[in-house]
């Protein structure tokens, strides 16, 4: 276990939170979209995080169970949230069904904004951890320097 494990873990956190922010941005931007290439309204997307043991060699893979102290985070999937359309009555809309209802993406802007703030805070937390690691590393290099 060396200093770089922690840094690698923090970097994976940055990447995961950035992916999450991109997905949230996409949800917000498409909140009113009723037409997509797949047909139907845009569907709200969610990221799925999973902890990965640090594996940089085959030996690590073998020892992964022995010392599972440090793990990275990965976005393993981006899923379409279930129940992701809501119907709104708007008979003049070109995409309205015969009854006059339009299917819109079921995106709650408050929910997305709260999620965005959480992602951004976690991003900052990872940056803080990286800075702490960097600071410790630099001080270690300076032991005994005159």
């Amino acid at each position, binding site marked *: *276990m060396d*200093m770089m*494990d*922690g*840094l690698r*873990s*923090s970097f*994976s*956190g940055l990447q*995961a939170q950035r992916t999450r922010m991109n997905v949230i941005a996409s949800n917000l931007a498409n909140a009113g979209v009723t037409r997509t290439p797949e047909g139907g309204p845009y569907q709200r997307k969610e990221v799925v*995080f*999973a*902890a990965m043991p640090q594996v940089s060699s085959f030996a690590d893979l073998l020892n992964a169970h022995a*010392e*599972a*102290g*440090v*793990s*990275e*985070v990965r976005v393993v999937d981006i899923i379409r949230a279930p129940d992701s359309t809501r119907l709104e009555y708007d008979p003049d809309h070109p995409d309205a069904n015969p009854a006059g209802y339009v299917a819109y993406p079921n995106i709650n802007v408050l929910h997305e904004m709260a999620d965005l703030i*959480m992602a951004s*805070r*976690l991003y900052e*937390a*990872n940056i*803080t*951890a990286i800075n*702490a*690691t960097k*600071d*410790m590393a630099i*001080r*270690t290099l*300076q*032991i*005994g320097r*005159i």
Partner: protein
Amino acid sequence: MSRTFFPPTLEVLQKNLALRMARHQVLTSNITNAETPGYIAKDVSFEAALRDAAQPPSHNTLQRTHLRHLPVVARSVAQVQGVLVASPSDNVGSDLNTVSLDQEMGRLTLNAFHYNTSIEFLGRSLDQLRRVISEGGR
């Protein structure tokens, strides 16, 4: 490390640095996985063990009277190892993640502070030795 020249403090500081660095990695991993479902926050426990090992043997404890006797208290500083434990947390959400971000940030900061303090002490101890070596001949 020979006790004749190097002060025993150096060994304790060295061990402390290694264990604090290991703990730092684990705390960093907790922060990274603050929102991973099912992730259990971990910590490295060693402070009490290191404190006990670093204490000079008191007269109340058993003493070895022969070199070939089994060591009684036997915890030398070099033998202290960090133990990976699940860190106490009151923050278990519906996703079974036990990381409490503020607690982890606090632990990380405090741990880094202790690490940097040890570095400072180590530097000064080495400085003393250097002084002893170079100033003696003048």
